[in-house]
């Protein structure tokens, strides 16, 4: 069962994503912001994908992605951004940092599950 991490400062969004993905057979772990995400990624084994918000306190999602790419241990960890941001400059920055995709909220569960299946082969 592929393990997915959702990083979002909204508990309701984390619950929604977790419900949608666990219902589709994925294992889900949660982090509350970019700093928490990095700390948990360092401890978690076998993460198949990280789904990450952009605007978060302490460390935003794009800066978190930048730090993941800067470490050999996490340079190739797949990351899907899930955010309210839709401006091309943000999307292009994420793509340049090696993100695998960009989803604009609100979460559409069927599209989320489809995207996660494509990105994890699950």
């Amino acid at each position: 069962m592929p393990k997915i991490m959702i990083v979002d400062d909204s508990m309701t969004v984390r619950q929604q994503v977790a419900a949608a993905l666990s219902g589709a057979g994925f294992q889900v772990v949660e982090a509350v912001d970019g700093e928490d995400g990095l700390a948990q990624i360092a401890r978690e084994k076998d993460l198949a994908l990280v789904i990450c918000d952009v605007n978060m306190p302490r460390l935003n999602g794009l800066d978190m992605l930048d730090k993941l790419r800067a470490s050999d241990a996490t340079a190739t960890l797949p990351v899907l951004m899930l955010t309210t941001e839709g401006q091309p400059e943000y999307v292009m920055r994420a793509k340049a940092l090696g993100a695998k995709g960009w989803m604009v909220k609100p979460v559409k569960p069927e599209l989320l599950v489809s995207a996660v299946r494509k990105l994890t082969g699950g």
Partner: protein
Amino acid sequence: MTEATTTDVRTTLDDVVSKATIALFEGAGVTLAKMQAPGSQPTRATIAGLVGFTSDAMRGTLMIASTFAVFAEARPAEVRGEVLSEQVARDWLYLRDWAAELANQLVGRVKNKLFGLGVNLRIATPTALSGGALAVATPKSNRTKPLVFSHPAGEVWVWWDAIIDPDLELRPREDDSQAVGEGDVLLF
């Protein structure tokens, strides 16, 4: 730039924010209807989400306020089955969290629309508050009027309280670039 042009900008903003609010709640299965503001203050709002924004031409705060029942009903379908109670402190915590996220999603919709009209907003992180009967401070811009929407479980009040550069004109971008739409997915 004239006073009339600033009024045009505010009229456009009210339209953008109104449509974004209705669409946001519609996406959660909640139908709102725009109504005339019954006054300057809500009378039953107990939860509000707030988020700041800024840009070269516009800065201010978005606030969305309503009742416990409306925010509970507007939760995503995946979590709406859990019944919440006004008697349970933890449930107020859930709804403050959701009100902050709704404010975030609403300002995001407006931001994406304004991007197409030449304005690049930067958004702060949202927050929320709750209380027995929320009252709102006088908007910083004396031209800010609340947008009010009706729902059986309570009115939804939205303020786009912005100081706007009098030289701002909203017009479609020359390069036709658009923001990625709500609910859309791009895989790279």
